[in-house]
């Protein structure tokens, strides 16, 4: 009796360990760092340059100020800003809408593109 209990226990532990092997492989394959691609960005900038590409352009009522210059800004900062607009940590009607349509890859591409314009 004792031997069978130990055997069952050992076999189940081994089975769990074996399943971890498979799950581990699948998990590892998903983690790939996203790298911004400047060439791919060229097709995506039309939404941005309508406001950020015009010198002296200002926002609309009620808070009127100059639309910030983004060319030459740090890429990582642009990524964070867009992610925050997408998530809602930063509130702004236009930027929330624009960022909401962007994927992580889009964000990386755009950030790489604008940061290199110096």
């Amino acid at each position: 009796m004792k031997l069978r209990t130990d055997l069952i226990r050992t076999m189940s532990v081994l089975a769990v360990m074996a399943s971890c092997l498979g799950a581990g492989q699948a998990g590892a394959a998903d983690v790939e760092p996203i790298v911004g691609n400047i060439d791919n960005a060229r097709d995506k900038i039309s939404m941005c340059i309508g406001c950020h590409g015009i010198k002296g352009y200002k926002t609309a009522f009620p808070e009127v100020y100059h639309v910030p210059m983004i060319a030459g800004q740090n890429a990582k900062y642009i990524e964070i800003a867009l992610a925050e607009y997408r998530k809602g940590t930063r509130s702004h009607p236009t930027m929330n809408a624009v960022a909401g349509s962007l994927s992580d890859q889009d964000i990386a591409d755009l950030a790489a593109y604008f940061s290199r314009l110096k």
Partner: protein
Amino acid sequence: MKRFMLALVGATLAAAGITAQAQNLAAGRAAFDKAGCAACHGADAKTPILPEYPVLAGQYADYLMLALRAYKRGAEEGNHAAIVRKNATMGVQIAALKSEQEIRDIAAWLSSLPSDLSTRH
């Protein structure tokens, strides 16, 4: 004579204006240093210690003021209908800026600095 006096008054006012502006820029720089902004954004405001932090030099002054205002709102309780930014670091840093005038001076000084920021595309 009258024309001369008029020109003299005009020149004096112009000089006073320029001096006042220079004073504001100097005050802005002092406030920037006092509030510890340089520690993260760099003394020239365009070499931040981490790529996560933005270049501030040369940015539009009114936008910079809006950003600071938004960080301040983000740190406060309450539901803001206006533009808000919730940021743990900036929420703390903004507390060091006591007056609207300080914020205005810092923004003016920052926008006067040379930088690579532009509307290029």
